[in-house]
């Protein structure tokens, strides 16, 4: 017939590696799995100790020998939250994508949930979870996990929903025509098609999650000090004890943990997920991971999957029987009336909830204070704007310079990703000390604290934006002698505008959240406060003043949603319409 130029990859790969490599790989995989199981069991048991505040609370000691244990506790929380986020994303995204009616509620709701300041809710969730598990630390654990979960789940859900919506039509038709049962459709088409998007979003969210885990481990709620053994509470104790050395060690530990998780967990996943790309051609530089290479060299995974094949087959057949292929949808009848009822009901629910919240707040708070809180919101918003401008002016030129240099950007990207996931609140004490020493106004200074974490999103996206500028365009401007401000105005700014907007949305969202911990900081017995909505929420949370918590958090939601709608949405549309590099 004809000559086939390509040899199948597996034919050249499977039998080649020699025996010793395979045995070594087997041993490595086995040891790795056993270690993981042991550490998880050992660390996880710490979550079930007794907890009866205020007499019986876990101690956090500053002995550096405890650091690995604390780090493991924090990391375990992160992973439990990640699994919870994954499950939630699948369910919520699936329903939103499959039901047109649910979609109309779930997607705008997701937009709002995304804007809610997670830390403002800690007080509510902590009291709730503690009440659920009286006498056990589990309640506090779950509250912390819940805080991480709410910080990372929304964009994963969005990603899954969008992937489901973007499945190529003919793939969908092929699967329909061959009448795949719903479970097979889910695992063979829908999950694989969404894997890469989900993975990148999970990775970014996980990075942001370190901030929430450390902020949620040591909080004072309702006049109670709650500490949960972990890296975050270690830092909190170090701050109270004014122990700079312990602080330094905690930062070092945090850095090591982030790098380990990246190397042992995310890299292998990214390299493995490369096969889920929807593009038809193969790319030249597929991501690599040494861990994945070891797992692939080992024969254990293949042996296990072969051994379990009958079992998985049986499960698959059973599931197929329970969830057969979706019967065809009946032709759409006129739904105008039912839609009207549905929309009306929705508006009613919103009105009732708003009314309930308003009366709850009005019982204790007068109008003057509400005006005061609005003013605080404006002040915090000004800080957010200022830090956005500041980060843009500083980081965009640097990001563009890095992005235009391929060697430099390869080097810089993982570093910036690392910086973005490093919890900024670990660095707060150093900046605080500087403010205390110099007497610098904290009303301005708190803005720098908020920028500490947020700025990296601007840098990261500037690099990505600059990298995506086609080299043709850059060569063209060079040959036409375009340089300086003209180059920025006509090429660089339009070309990276979309990336900047993406970075800006993330950065400002993060900054609002950070304001709750950045507008009030302490070192030992000294406490610095700044006038703003974040400080208002933090204080209300600490003393357990419910009406003020509801007012503060609600106000922040309004500000964030308004900022997204009034400023970012039009900018985003503009970027899509005018400045898209096809």
């Amino acid at each position, binding site marked *: 017939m004809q000559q086939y130029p390509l040899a*199948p990859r*597996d034919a050249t790969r499977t039998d080649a590696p020699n025996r010793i490599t395979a045995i070594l790989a087997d041993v490595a995989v086995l040891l790795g799995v056993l270690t993981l199981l042991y550490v998880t069991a050992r660390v996880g048991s710490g979550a079930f100790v007794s907890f009866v505040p205020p007499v019986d609370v876990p101690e956090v000691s500053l002995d550096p020998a405890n650091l690995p244990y604390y780090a493991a506790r924090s990391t375990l929380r992160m992973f439990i939250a990640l699994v919870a986020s994954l499950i939630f994303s699948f369910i919520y995204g699936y329903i939103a994508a499959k039901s047109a009616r649910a979609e109309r509620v779930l997607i705008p709701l997701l937009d709002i949930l995304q804007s809610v300041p997670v830390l403002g809710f800690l007080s509510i969730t902590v009291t709730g979870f503690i009440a659920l598990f009286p006498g056990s630390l589990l309640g506090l654990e779950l509250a912390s996990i819940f805080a991480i979960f709410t910080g990372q789940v929304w964009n994963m859900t969005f990603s899954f929903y969008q992937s489901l919506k973007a499945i*190529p039509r003919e793939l969908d038709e092929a699967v*329909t*025509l*061959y*009448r795949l049962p719903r479970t097979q459709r889910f695992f063979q088409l829908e999950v694989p098609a969404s894997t890469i998007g989900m993975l990148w979003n999970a990775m970014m969210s996980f990075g942001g999650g370190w901030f929430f885990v450390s902020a949620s481990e040591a909080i004072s709620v309702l006049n109670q000090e709650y500490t949960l053994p972990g890296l975050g509470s270690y830092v909190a104790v170090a701050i109270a004890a004014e122990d700079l050395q312990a602080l330094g060690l905690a930062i070092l530990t945090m850095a090591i943990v982030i790098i380990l998780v990246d190397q042992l967990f995310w890299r292998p996943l990214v390299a493995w997920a490369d096969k889920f790309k929807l593009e038809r051609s193969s790319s030249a530089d597929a991501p690599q991971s040494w861990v994945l290479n070891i797992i692939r060299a080992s024969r254990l995974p293949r042996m296990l999957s072969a051994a379990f094949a009958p079992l998985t087959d049986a499960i698959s057949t059973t599931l197929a029987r329970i969830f057969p292929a979706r019967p*065809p949808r009946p032709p759409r009848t006129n739904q105008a009336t039912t839609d009207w009822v549905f929309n009306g009901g929705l508006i009613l629910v919103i009105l009732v909830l708003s009314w309930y919240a308003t009366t709850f707040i009005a019982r204790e708070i007068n109008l003057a204070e509400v005006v005061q809180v609005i003013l605080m919101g404006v002040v915090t918003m000004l800080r957010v704007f200022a830090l956005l401008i500041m980060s843009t002016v500083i980081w965009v030129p640097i990001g563009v310079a890095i992005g235009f240099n391929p060697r430099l950007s390869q080097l810089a990207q993982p570093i910036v990703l690392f910086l973005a996931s490093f919890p900024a609140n670990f660095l707060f004490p150093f900046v605080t000390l500087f403010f205390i020493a110099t007497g610098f106004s904290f009303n301005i200074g708190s803005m720098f604290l908020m920028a500490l974490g947020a700025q990296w999103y601007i840098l990261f996206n500037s690099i990505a934006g600059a990298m995506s500028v086609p080299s043709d365009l850059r060569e063209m401007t060079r040959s036409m002698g375009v340089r300086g401000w003209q180059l920025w105005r006509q090429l660089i700014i339009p070309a990276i505008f979309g990336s900047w907007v993406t970075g800006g949305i993330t950065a400002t969202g993060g900054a609002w959240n950070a304001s709750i911990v950045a507008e009030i900081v302490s070192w030992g017995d000294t406490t610095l406060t700044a006038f703003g909505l974040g400080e208002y929420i933090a204080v209300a949370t600490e003393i357990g003043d419910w009406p003020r918590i509801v007012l503060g958090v609600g106000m922040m939601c309004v500000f964030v949603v308004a900022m997204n709608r009034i400023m970012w949405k039009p900018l985003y549309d503009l970027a899509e319409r*005018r400045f898209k590099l096809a």
Partner: protein
Amino acid sequence: MTMQTADVLIMAQDVSKAFPLPEGNGTFTVLERINLSVCTDEVIALLGRSGSGKSTLLRILAGLIPPTSGTVTSSGKPVVGANPDVAMVFQSFALLPWATVQENVELGLKAQGVPRAERAARALKAIDMVGLDGFESAYPRELSGGMQQRVGFARAFVMEPKVLFMDEPFSALDVLTAENLRGEIDMLWQEDSFPADSILIVTHNIEEAVLLADRVIILGANPGHIRGEVKIDLPRPRERETERFKQLVDYIYTAMTNPQVEVVSPARRGTTGKLNPFPPLPMVRAGNMSGLLELIVERGGKEDLPYLGQLTNMSTDELLPIIDAAVLLGFATVEQGDIQVTEVGRAFAEADIEQSKALFRQQVLAHVPLIVTIQQKLQEKSNRAVRADLFLDMLEEYYPEEAALHQFETAVDWGRYAELFEYDATERRLTRDS
């Protein structure tokens, strides 16, 4: 293969399909009263231009889309949901990129709950049949386009369907690969062991239809309807060079470029709803039209259509709309498979840019109601500006949203070329050229 009175496998009776127009403006009819049957041992080609609803018809017969009215039966039973008698080969191959060749081929078998060992055996046999032996564990992205489509065929073959559906299966491949694969499928069809009883292929390639089919069913557009069928009475394998082959291709070409010509059996054209004051414009850039006319004028002002396709290296789907547009504007006429440039057309092609724009303006205002309407609205306005939405709303009374947008874009392109008006895409506003 023989054309005796064979069993009917799939039958469509009075099938119509309409999609709702935006904002409750009624419906847009894509297919109207289609009657069609697929019998055993025959290859049917559905031939039509874009907009004739041929892919929609295929999907209705496959049970992927429900018809608005009419019935589809398969093996005597009404089709509800995916038609179990059908397997389909897709234009874009539709392979799961994360599954190996074998896993892709096993997809339908797994859905039926066929045990692992049997699944593998049947899949390997199908893979062997399409000449991909040894590639079972490769991933689609490691294969060339032609080999990927072979996997698509294997996946359909393994189901042993009663009717094999093909939706433009060769149009995403380069010319040589398509030729090669088409030949192989034709060879397989002539053997007794072909894994399906019949084939239904959708195509816009006239030669492909004549090469493969026993019956070519020609669809007309706006709304899609069956204009008639042409029986291909050539022995297999078919030779392109024979007189009869050329004759059939020429005949179909003429039929497709002249919507008013009747194809063998008279075609019914029902009108639905309001009369459309804006007859559809072919989606063609003014510059392409002028380029093609120049080419024909250079070659003496008259050219054979199939040859023109080869000369410009354009598919029928790309070439025919340009010719339609030229005919619409009075620049050319089409007769018996030839295109003839008119006097105005010749002047338009040969004049300098200012003159040719003036000629274009004159013809557009004489033949395109939509542009005349735009022109009038602009003259009524003292500020010489009108929002695009006004015209889009007007068009959406007769076209679905996307089609309305295409109509508008074409009108804007032509109007700009004619220097009648300007369009600001950011403000979405039309302004009069001063």
